[in-house]
């Protein structure tokens, strides 16, 4: 089960907004600093706390820089629920063991700061009491996520 405080964003939020390129670095401190660097509406960007992102369509489109996912993880993001994902962002999430799930529509489901919970195939808003079923994950990605990411998955299978 994943619990976190909601960050709510709209459609087509790209990786340059989530993590501007000048925070690209091998130093985790610099990477962390860039979290949501150009998404001006996010409160307490500097605070590390458990978070769940709720987004519209095509979340994470754009650059393949994996430092974006690292920044999300360092800032405490535990899961991302969106109406759809940019393909590379989705693969990066799975590869690094970050829960990324889709739901047909999230309009009006959460406001910033709501306590959200992803449990099995459901998304709950603990403030409003609302719940939504998550779209099923393809069995391949389900297995990758369960293993904790792509490298542990390939290791368990004996490919590595």
């Amino acid at each position, binding site marked *: 089960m994943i619990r976190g405080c909601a960050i709510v964003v709209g459609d087509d939020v790209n990786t340059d907004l989530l993590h501007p390129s000048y925070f690209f670095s091998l130093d985790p401190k610099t990477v962390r600093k860039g979290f949501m660097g150009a998404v001006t509406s996010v409160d307490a960007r500097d605070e590390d706390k458990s978070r769940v992102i709720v987004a519209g369509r095509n979340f994470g489109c754009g650059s393949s820089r994996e*430092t974006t996912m690292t920044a999300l993880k360092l800032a405490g993001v535990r899961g991302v629920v969106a109406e759809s994902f*940019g393909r590379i962002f989705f693969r990066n999430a799975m590869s690094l063991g970050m829960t990324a799930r889709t739901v047909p529509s999230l309009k009006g489901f959460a406001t910033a700061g709501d306590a959200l919970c992803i449990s099995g195939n459901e998304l709950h808003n603990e403030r409003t009491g609302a719940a939504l079923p998550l779209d099923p994950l393809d069995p391949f990605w389900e297995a990758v996520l369960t293993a904790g990411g792509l490298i542990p998955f390939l290791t368990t299978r004996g490919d590595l």
Partner: protein
Amino acid sequence: MSQTLTEKVLSRGLTGRTMDGSEWREVEPDLLLGHDATIALVVDRFADADKPLAFPERLFLVADHFAPPSTVDRANVLRRFLDFVERHGIGGPAGGTFQMMQGICHQVLVESPRCVPGSIVVGADSHTTMAGALGAFATGMGSTDILAVLQTGTTWLRIPPSDRIVLEGSMAPHLRGKDLALWMMRTYGEGGAGWKALEFEDCTDGDPIPMDSRLTLTNMSVDCGAVNGIWVPDDLTRRYFESNGGVWPTDADLSPDPGATYAAEHRLDVTNLAPQIAAPYSPANVSDVAAVAGERVHQVFIGSCAGGRIEEIADAASILRGRRIDSRLKLVVTPASQAVYRAAMEDGSLTALLDAGAVITNPSCGACGGIDKGLLAAGEVCVSTSNRNFRGRMGDVDARVFLGSGLTAAASALTGRITDPREVMQ
């Protein structure tokens, strides 16, 4: 069963391993493209695993983003990448290709005989899709995905449904690949081709659509969400590939089957399209240039993997030759590769641009991606031939970037305002 070109090419790489109930299958790529910035992210993890490279000879590694570096941090990123290249003998005893400061990886790849029509290319960069202009299946991935390919020699992909994009009519003299790519962005929106393949076919009359234009379309396929953009090879593809020293793969079937199933088909008559431009902050926020003409411009950037080729540079020179831009306007020209730089030097374009008031930088990503030379201040407006005008990507979050062709960029440099190139074309 009848197959699309993407289905055909990807099928050749299937290893046969699948997972019950899953659409994803294991695929063996023919080539792995990597650059300094994203490969540096996996170097330590690769060393810790202490495993050999699965296929060093299939690597194509390019130092471009941070070469030569502009900050100490970037010098350290580049160093880590170079140490990796040296340790594993890439481009040396182990085989494979390594190049530094020769240009942007995507451009260097398509100029090389290793970008083979019908092959499968995976790359540690989203714009890897560009190589599809030669009829390859080419797609981008993040660093951990790439780490797995380095170690296992395989990756997991789903064979995507394809949309067919047919270009017909005859190209008006003011149109370039960027106008067509922006039309595509306008048609799809940023995520509209999400998780699909785009298959392009040149059915125009007269001269075929030039390779530089095709490259811009397959490059920007990822910007409307596509897995890959693939151009059905024709005589021009063959001439281009062979002029790079490539040996045409006579055993590969490089045409889609007549009865192949497409998710959608779009046809564009290129005869009457007006020059296109994308306004901030989305490459899909597209209109005719005329709709935003007149806005004051502080910088013009001609460069990037989407728009730093001889097409854009020669076009800019043709508009600016014998003319001079306002001395307060920054005209930054960053050739996409040394080969482009050399060609632009030899055909006189660079001299014409220098005379007009431009600065020519070293081939690299440059201002695209906010990396180097040519970042924007708050409130500044730039017309750029690159592929992304996201907020903050090329400088301050309050700078505004418009995307257009080399003709539109040069016309705007000339007048200091966003300008439809037809107004100034000689």
